[in-house]
């Protein structure tokens, strides 16, 4: 058996090793040498350089970055209804699609047109060197696992929200993405673009006002129908599901992946999976990151998390997500976020501070509020073009780090709703204080063979 020393030779491509052995035995071929000279920036051993030239992924531009003329490439993993939307995101050429449902796959391939690889195993996507960006559009219980595997395969990542299903998964994604120097984004955008749901304004002026202390400190932010945010309580699971035969097009075992095995019922999978704790977390899972990420940004909490969380609501089923009435998150400095599932009308401030309130449409009880906001310094503009971020290796505005902290709010809320008791959280250790059961929900073992 031929064995390659990983430390000495990049392990990826067998052709290259075969070539290495060729070189030892017969010397470099003329063609190979020619190609080698074109890449004089590679100051490497003859073996490794030769191996590279056999399978160039792309030619580097003069600055050692991707040349602007080179097209980025992408693959979409999970091509259900949302995945089909990702097929159309511009900026990179689609090379592969992946889904565990043959019908999804067929349909995506029809949309994608000829020359696109279709597979049901995401690992076949990750092993392809010519794929630059991986879109992860599976249900959330797969997000962390595929994100980490993609980072370790050298891919940049565009991941659907919620970023991860547990807090521990999120920590691991941050670690893998940063260690491998990957560019990562979560697919929500309200912190940097567009009207923030029903609030009637973008986030930027709010952020300016809050950072400058116009409303004072600490602040209380309320997310309810009355301030423009609908918690979508129709995303609930069924507490009684009868097993049904798995349809032939679905690889149910792979769909479950790291999740516990439970007998198949169509309500568990496609679209309605949101109603089950094993895969997501109801309306919180669906809308949580959209609504909470900008709030983390407004409160300048990108590097920390709340220290308390508590929920009011009916008891939760161990499998099916139910509804809730109210959630409260509190940070160490006294700032609070209220997720109000009940109040639907009335003039409720979106942000309430000791110096004043901010309502929908950027209205405030502070005189001359909008003028004041205009005079404040603008925040440094973050990178909001993912394709440019990938090309120039810049951190995206909503990345693994702040994305994980935003998703932690969702995951804290889920645990509080399930346990129904006030919880204290240590934002540094990212574990609950004095609550073993809650910590067992922070980190949940995966079903073999999957692991983080």
């Amino acid at each position: 058996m031929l064995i390659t020393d990983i430390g000495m030779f990049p392990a990826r491509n067998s052709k290259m090793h075969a070539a290495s052995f060729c070189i030892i035995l017969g010397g470099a071929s003329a063609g190979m040498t020619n190609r080698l000279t074109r890449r004089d920036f590679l100051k490497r051993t003859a073996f490794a350089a030769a191996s590279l030239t056999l399978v160039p992924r792309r030619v580097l531009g003069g600055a050692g970055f991707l040349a602007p003329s080179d097209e980025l490439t992408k693959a979409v993993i999970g091509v259900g209804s949302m995945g089909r939307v990702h097929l159309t995101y511009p900026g990179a050429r689609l090379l592969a699609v992946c889904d565990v449902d043959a019908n999804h796959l067929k349909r995506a391939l029809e949309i994608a047109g000829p020359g696109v690889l279709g597979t049901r195993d995401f690992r076949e996507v990750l092993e392809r060197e010519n794929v630059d960006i991986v879109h992860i559009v599976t249900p959330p219980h797969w997000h962390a696992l595929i994100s980490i595997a993609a980072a370790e395969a050298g891919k940049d990542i565009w991941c659907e929200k919620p970023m991860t299903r547990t807090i521990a998964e999120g920590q691991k994604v941050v670690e893998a993405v940063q260690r491998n120097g990957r560019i990562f984004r979560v697919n929500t955008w309200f912190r940097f673009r567009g009207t923030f749901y029903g609030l009637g304004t973008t986030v930027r002026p709010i952020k300016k006002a809050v950072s400058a202390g116009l409303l004072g400190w600490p602040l209380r932010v309320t997310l309810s129908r009355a301030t423009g945010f609908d918690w979508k309580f129709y995303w609930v699971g069924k507490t009684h599901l009868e097993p049904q035969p798995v349809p032939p097009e679905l690889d149910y075992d792979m769909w479950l992946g790291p999740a516990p095995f439970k007998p198949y019922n169509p309500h568990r999978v496609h679209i309605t999976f949101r109603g089950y704790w094993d895969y997501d977390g109801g309306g919180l899972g669906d809308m949580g990151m959209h609504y909470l990420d900008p709030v983390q940004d407004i409160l300048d909490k990108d590097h920390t998390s709340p220290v308390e969380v508590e929920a009011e609501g009916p008891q939760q089923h161990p499998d099916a997500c139910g509804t809730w009435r109210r959630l409260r998150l509190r940070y160490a400095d006294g700032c609070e976020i209220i997720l109000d599932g009940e109040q639907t009308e009335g003039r409720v401030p979106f942000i309430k501070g000791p110096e004043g309130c901010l309502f929908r449409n950027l209205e405030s009880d502070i005189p001359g509020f909008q003028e004041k906001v205009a005079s404040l310094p603008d925040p440094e503009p973050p990178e909001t073009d993912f394709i440019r971020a990938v090309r120039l290796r810049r951190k995206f505005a909503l990345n693994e780090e702040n994305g994980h902290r935003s998703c932690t709010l969702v995951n804290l809320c889920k645990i509080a709703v399930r346990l129904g008791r006030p919880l204290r959280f240590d934002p540094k250790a990212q574990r609950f204080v004095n609550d073993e059961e809650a910590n067992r929900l922070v980190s949940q073992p995966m079903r073999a063979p999957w692991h983080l």
Partner: protein
Amino acid sequence: MRHTRASRWKAVIAASCLGIALMGVSVPAFGAAQSLEEETLRLVSAFPAEDSLQRDELASELLKLGPEAILQVCRLLRPPGPEDDAKARFALNGIVTYAARNGAETQRRVLIKALHRALEELEAADVRAFLIRQLQLVGGNESVKPLRRFLLDPRLCDPAAQALETIGTPEAEKALRASLGKAAGKCRVTLVRTLGELRSRKAVKKILEFTENPDPEMRRVALFALANIGDPRAEAVLSRVPVAASSYDRTRAPSLYLLYVERLMESGYRVQGTRICRRLIQNYTAPQDIHVACAALNLLVETWGERGIEDVFRAVESPSGELRQCALALAERLGGPEVTARWVEKMTRVPPESQAQIIAMLGRRGDVTALPSLKRMMRTGEKIVRLAAVPAVKRLGGPAVIPDLIDHLETEDAEEIAAVREALLGFPAAEVVPAAVEALEKGPPLSRAALIEVLAEKKARDAADNVLALSESDEPPVRRAALAALADVCGPKHLPQLIKRLLDATDPGEVRLLQDAVAGAANQIPEAEERARRLLDTMASLQGEKKILLLRPLPRIGGSQALETVVRETQSEVPRVRAVAVSVLSQWPDFEAAGHLLSIFRSAEEAKLFYPAVLGYVRLVAESGLDEQEKLARYRELLDTREESEARRPVFSGIARLATEAAFRLAVSYLDEPDLRSAAAEAAGRILINNEDIRDRLPRSEFRDIVHKSAGAVADETLRQRLDALLRDILLEEGFVPLFNGRNLEGWKGLVADPVRRARMSPEELAEAQAVADRRMRDHWKVVDGVLVFDGKGDNLCTVQDFGDFELLLDWKIEPGGDSGVYLRGAPQVQIWDPAQWPEGSGGLYNNTTGPSSPLQRADHPVGTWNTFRIKMIGDRVTVHLNGILVVDNVVMENYWERDKPIYPVGPIELQAHNTPLYFRNIYIREIPRENEKANPARSVCLSQDRSDSRRPEEGE
């Protein structure tokens, strides 16, 4: 003994109690005399609790009843199936959560004991899995023994191992390890995975045996486990990868190796690990591998902290921008000012691309000692360097560098100007406005325009006079930027001047900007009714069309006097003033204007008056707080008020925004009105797309027909595609299959002669003729934007497959004088033609000679728009609906090719080419099994074999 008792319990529950408890009928409390069973069932039936308080009360009472009661709750669990055991699951999980809280050790023990007993007694695997998952939440070391017996059970080893992993004690690790020798298959994979997660050094020797296992999952898990354990014995298998390994395993190998190295360094082997990391950085330089070098560098710095700085400096020499960026991300937080000095020095000796990266890092690093060098680079570097230096200098220097940044505006380069503008916006108005005002007079025009934009963004009202002066500049960029800024900087005192400028302005672009400025300045007046006063006063003194200039900004200012004036001007003698006044009224921001718009709508004679009126009225109603029913009533009234289609069409944009079935029905009722069809379809389509509940309520066939009809009529391409997709989903659900995939001609072939002549050809002749026909097909039938397009030359397009009985759906479109048809089973035809030339319309069985050949009525949509056929053919009888209207009712289709024979039993569908361009889309077919096929499944297999033969009748004979 136990077994017998368990059986008795089960019998009791099944016979009497389970039903009561689980159906949610509460059992009345019987007081102290009540049995344990009854009390337990009473409590269980109260689940799910309304809140955690009630949950805790119920759980506490159940726990007080002792382990026997908890066991009884467990016995109410059922494997997933027809019996609903949700209450038992709520109850048990409620007890678990209650007993798992901090400081409830006694209660937890009662619960654990009962769960252990239940695990013994209850045998259904799904029930056990549920119990194990509860133990995973609440169990401790005492649960190791009861769990270990499931580690070899393929149905339960996963939950058992996961629970043990969570418990995580040395005993748990030991239990897993002890089972490893006996385990096989899936359970072995599970055990190795879990031992890897628990970093069991004692398992290393055993796990090493699995690294060459034939099962790839086993090998992968074994390698992961060894890497995560980080024992040097695994170095040999982790540092090498067999060339024969799969592509994925080779991709993954370096990460596993690095995980191993990380663990190695954690346990003290730092020198060894460092050597490996440096070797990886040195060797992994290819673009697709650079992340490995990056990870190795990160690991070095994580291990050595500040002492890793030399490796970081070395990595910045890399030709890979990606590795440099990776190193510089680490450099942000390493070392103090002396390291900053080294970076500054380094910066001077690297190529410009690297300089730019280092500068950006120094900006983020925040050490101001770098500022003088960065300022110098901002002046002297190449463009890429200067662009990076601007934000870095801004960050480090604060307001003190505003003059440097403004000096930097001495350039014609738009990118650099944009970078400085962005940097300046990052300062508060108090700092940046005076400096910007001072610099307004000098510099290149684009730079001065950028400064004016900064003043506008900051709403620098103190600078209004300067901006006003510049708005008369001769330099176009300056003049334009200043005019655009007026709305943000001017106040009430500038109104006279602005109004005068507006009345004198001639350039339409400048007029618009000055109107914005007037509105912006007027809106600075605190009292709402005062805002428009000066405009209204001036307007009173104006004659004729001049008034228009001041009318236009009024909707943005508002107020009841302004409204009054506008309403008055809608009666103006000057036609243009009248028209502009109506248009202004139609933009009015509040509902007050609605009544006026409605009366204009009712009484106006010209479309240029009633059209904007209805647009404005519909908008105000849509944005109003009226409830959906009231809104719909108003729209209905509009539709009933005027006959003109221009007057009615805009109403549908309002209807489209409603989310009620009544609104949907109203839109649908106009789908057959030729001039409103498109607008109505758009409304119906949007309501359907946006409201799943309305979709769900509609009967399937009606839903399908409306979607189909709407998709054919909408003008908006995106909406049409979404409706087509919706249609496709419904049709697939109903058993239709697409004949046309929207991308290419897959499933179609060119026409060869006719069935009679084809039957006479030899297989070779036919194959040759088919190849020629297919080439000809590709020349003349094309797919353009998902539509099948025929260029007017060439022959019929035939399905590759033959069909017997079927229902066919298809959309078609022709041009003036167009002529086509749909052949059924290879025979002509369901007619398509231009009704302007053939007034009977399309859809008839044109070639019938004995039976009827004309459609029952003309149901064509205008030429150039989409039409929909639904064609059903059973035996020799054909029914055709054109645009939802029955045009051929169960008529025998005659055999055109062989008049003495009945129509062929099977044959292709063909789209007839008749020398005119044609368009088709949404072609779906549902095959209808024949009676004898249904009656005898065995026969149906035979038939389908016959059918596959008959697909090429030409070859068969």
